[in-house]
């Protein structure tokens, strides 16, 4: 999955877990909303419509996913709850979360009975097969070739999407409601990948071409308007009956609207004035103090499982030298970077790859004065200068590459100063955000020091360590090469592969292995890890029932505006 900036609102992330909590969904049936707070219209505002296609099997943005989870369901899904409960996978359209058989290569689900799509059609097992074939046939689903090709027949579907046939990979029986997935190899993250909107079930007959508005789903709402220049609108799905409060609770608002075209400044003002109930975009830095002072009760701050970092080009001088990379890590004042981001209440300094409260996370920070506690405390400039001298790279020219958004440019400027102060000749290269990320990924550009960020797809250590720093994530001369540093250590890769195998049967041991991988990678300093950010949600006075899921963030359907 790719990084995104909060300021770009290109959030991509996904679903869940090494923690394969097999739990059955409750069978409570109700057509009424989840509480007595039902009714009203939740008005949300955003700078722009979600980028890219609105098709649920193509779209890869937090902005649309936060709405798709209200209109569609997967066989399994992340529990709609706050805290660590929200990272658990629960049964959604299926009756239970299955345990894999056949050495982790077979998953068998049974569909709940009586679930209907918003167009009135009853959910059948064949819809599941249709959905997965469409995922390949549509030809643009971002992770078809990286996640779902593990299904038997998936690789052939990637090669020839139009004639995709998953007869061998997805076995369905409409009469019993049974769906069996056969995989080519065990995949500990398969259930996570079934829990994100790419795998949400669509009715048979949905066109195998990109749609302009999400098609009918099984959730408590349905899409009735999608005008990327104006607004989108969700209204209640009359065919919805709550089958699992954990997986898909009935929503509170009758209508959910998202209006486009307002700057972040204007969004803040609208929420302050009660003209809007929630702003999707992060509030601008110069309004935070006002919000914190006058509207504190309407502000919610939550930590994110994400990281902001600068990657070294480990194959390009001067940072093909380990000591040079470690020197910068020792020199950096992470408190200054946190200040630039918005202060200690909005970000936490870090030295390592995995974010806190994440599978495999064990606090570790060797690049600080007085190391040992696992936490960063202060820069060690003397040690940094010593390492620069020992590396023989003093005086080398370094281009600090970042994007032009306020915060990221400011961090870039900070690093230019820092690198100059420890003996390099640094200059800033600030590119437009849309250009900067592909530019840094492409090995042709021989980046030396490049800004990036990463938000979880789902809570699995591999989603950070293997995707961002694994040997298989290097694609030479490609704009889609998420291992920006081009870091590849064979011993570390072997450990990553070992952790992935362990995850199928023994998640605890797997997480131990991932922790050791995190430590080993941090020691090799392919990045300067800066901080783990927090997210601000700003709500109007009338919104009650705010719930923050670590997977889906603000659960819009649970808010009450009555």
């Amino acid at each position, binding site marked *: 999955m790719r990084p995104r900036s909060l300021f770009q609102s290109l959030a991509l992330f996904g679903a869940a877990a090494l923690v394969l909590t097999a739990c059955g969904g409750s069978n409570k049936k109700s057509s009424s909303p989840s509480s007595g707070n039902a009714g009203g219209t939740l008005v949300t505002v955003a700078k722009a419509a979600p980028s890219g296609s609105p098709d649920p099997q193509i779209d890869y943005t937090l902005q649309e996913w936060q709405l798709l989870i209200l209109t569609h369901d997967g066989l399994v899904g992340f529990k709609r709850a706050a805290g660590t409960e929200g990272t658990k996978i629960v049964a959604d359209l299926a009756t239970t979360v299955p345990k894999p058989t056949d050495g982790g290569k077979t998953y068998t689900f049974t569909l709940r009975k009586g679930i209907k799509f918003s167009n009135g059609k009853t959910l059948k097992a064949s819809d599941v097969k249709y959905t997965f074939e469409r995922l390949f046939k549509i030809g643009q689903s971002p992770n078809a070739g990286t996640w779902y090709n593990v299904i038997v027949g998936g690789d052939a579907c990637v090669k020839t999407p139009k004639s995709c046939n998953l007869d061998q990979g997805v076995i369905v029986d409409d009469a019993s409601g049974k769906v069996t997935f056969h995989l080519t190899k065990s995949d500990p993250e398969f259930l996570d990948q079934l829990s994100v909107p790419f795998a949400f079930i669509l009715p048979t007959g949905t066109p195998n071409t990109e749609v302009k508005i999400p098609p009918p789903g099984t959730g408590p709402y349905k899409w009735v308007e999608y005008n990327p220049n104006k607004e989108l609108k969700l209204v209640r799905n009359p065919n919805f009956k709550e089958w699992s409060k954990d997986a898909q609770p009935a929503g509170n608002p009758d209508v959910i609207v998202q209006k486009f075209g307002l700057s972040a*400044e204007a969004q803040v003002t609208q929420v302050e004035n009660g003209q809007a109930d929630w702003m999707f975009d992060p509030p*601008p*830095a*110069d*309004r*935070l*103090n*006002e*919000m*914190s*002072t*006058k509207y*504190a009760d309407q*502000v919610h*701050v939550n930590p994110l499982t994400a990281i902001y970092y600068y990657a070294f080009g480990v194959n390009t001088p001067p940072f093909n030298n380990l000591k040079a990379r470690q020197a910068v890590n020792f020199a950096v*004042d992470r*408190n*200054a970077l946190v*200040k*630039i981001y*918005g*202060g*200690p*209440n*909005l970000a936490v300094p870090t030295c390592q790859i995995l974010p806190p409260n994440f599978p495999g996370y064990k606090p570790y920070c060797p690049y600080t004065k007085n190391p040992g506690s696992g936490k960063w405390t202060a820069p060690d400039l003397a040690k940094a200068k010593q390492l620069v001298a020992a590396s023989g790279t003093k005086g080398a*020219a*370094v*281009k600090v590459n970042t994007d*032009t958004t*306020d915060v990221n*440019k*400011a961090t*870039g*400027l*900070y690093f*230019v*100063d*820092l690198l100059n102060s420890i003996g390099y000749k640094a*200059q*800033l*290269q*600030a*590119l*437009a955000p849309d*250009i900067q990320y592909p*530019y840094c990924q492409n090995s042709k*550009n*021989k980046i*030396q020091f490049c800004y990036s960020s990463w938000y979880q797809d789902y809570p699995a250590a591999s989603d950070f360590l293997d995707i961002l720093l694994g040997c298989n994530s290097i694609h030479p001369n490609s704009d889609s090469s998420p291992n920006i540093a081009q870091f590849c250590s064979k011993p570390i890769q072997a450990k990553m592969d070992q952790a992935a195998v362990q995850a199928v049967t023994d998640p605890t041991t797997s997480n131990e292995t991932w922790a050791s991988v995190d430590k080993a990678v941090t020691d090799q300093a392919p990045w300067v890890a800066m901080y783990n950010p927090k997210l*601000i949600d700003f709500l109007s006075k009338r919104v009650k029932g705010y719930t923050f899921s670590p997977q889906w963030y603000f659960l819009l359907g649970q808010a009450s505006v009555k």
Partner: protein
Amino acid sequence: MAVFEPEAEGIVLDVEETGGDIVGRSPWALAGRRFLRNKLALAALGLFILIVAVSLSAPLYAKHVAKTDPFKSNVTGTVTIDGKTIDVIQEGTGKLGLGETPIGPTWKSQYFIGADGQGRDVAARVLYGGRASLFIGFGSALLACLLALVLALVAGYFAGATDLVISRLMDLIWAFPLYLLAISLATVLLARPTDKPLKIGPVTLTAGSLWIPLVIIGLVYVPYVFRPIRGQVLSLREKEFVEAAVAQGAGSFRLVFREILPNVISTVVVLLPLMIATTILTESALSYLSIGVQAPKASWGTIIEDGQGLLYTRPWVAIAPGIMIVLTVLALNVLGDGLRDALDPRSKVRMK
């Protein structure tokens, strides 16, 4: 006794001038006399000189008054104001303590108009920004005028195929939307890898060099100056004094440099301040878009960009360079008008 007839001598009189006023004076002396009578133009010149002077004094201001390095990040720094030591970037207040705000105007020597998001003294940066903006503005205008003058002389004098080729080339550049052309050039030049700087003959330009925006802006404005001068050269080459010189056996070099050039140079002199004003605006726009002057160097455009995110809490960061741009452009436009009135009171040459 012969009567002096200015018109017959090719001298243009101002409305308040009589033939007696100008007897025995060269056209340049006459222009100087007229310019000195124009109080508005003199005030504009004074203002422009003042802006240049304060901009040139930036290092002195930074070292002895602000006592700071305005290019160095000072996010965790402190400053002592009235005996109290305070953070340059101040922690957020309120119940949640969100947001970090740079120090506002102190109206003292240090952080006179406050700090930007990097904790740098804005007043010192505005002065340094003036150096960059004026350097690029003046340099690119001079480049545009010189190139346009040479090309216009060649095209206008030789006419025919030479004129056709040069004029169409100018049309081609003109046809591109100016900012789009400048942005495209800047994007290509600024994104070059560190180990592949731009080499033009003996000159090597790295991505952060001020010469890159200077050359880009200079080049895109060449057609704007070329057109009026070429028209004038085409007209002059048909004049009697040129024909007389031809009859005397003058060669092309003499005709161009001795007969035609002196008659078009006043147009260039009139256009130059107006072009400087235009190129300063262009530089500010490109720098504001992050494709002109590259950080940590400052220009008025980059400082406005720095201040954009602080408009709500620290508006002076954007307002101060904005005021400098307005004053400079205003001064140069009034100065340009004054020069035009002085050099050629009946001229219809106007910058569009």
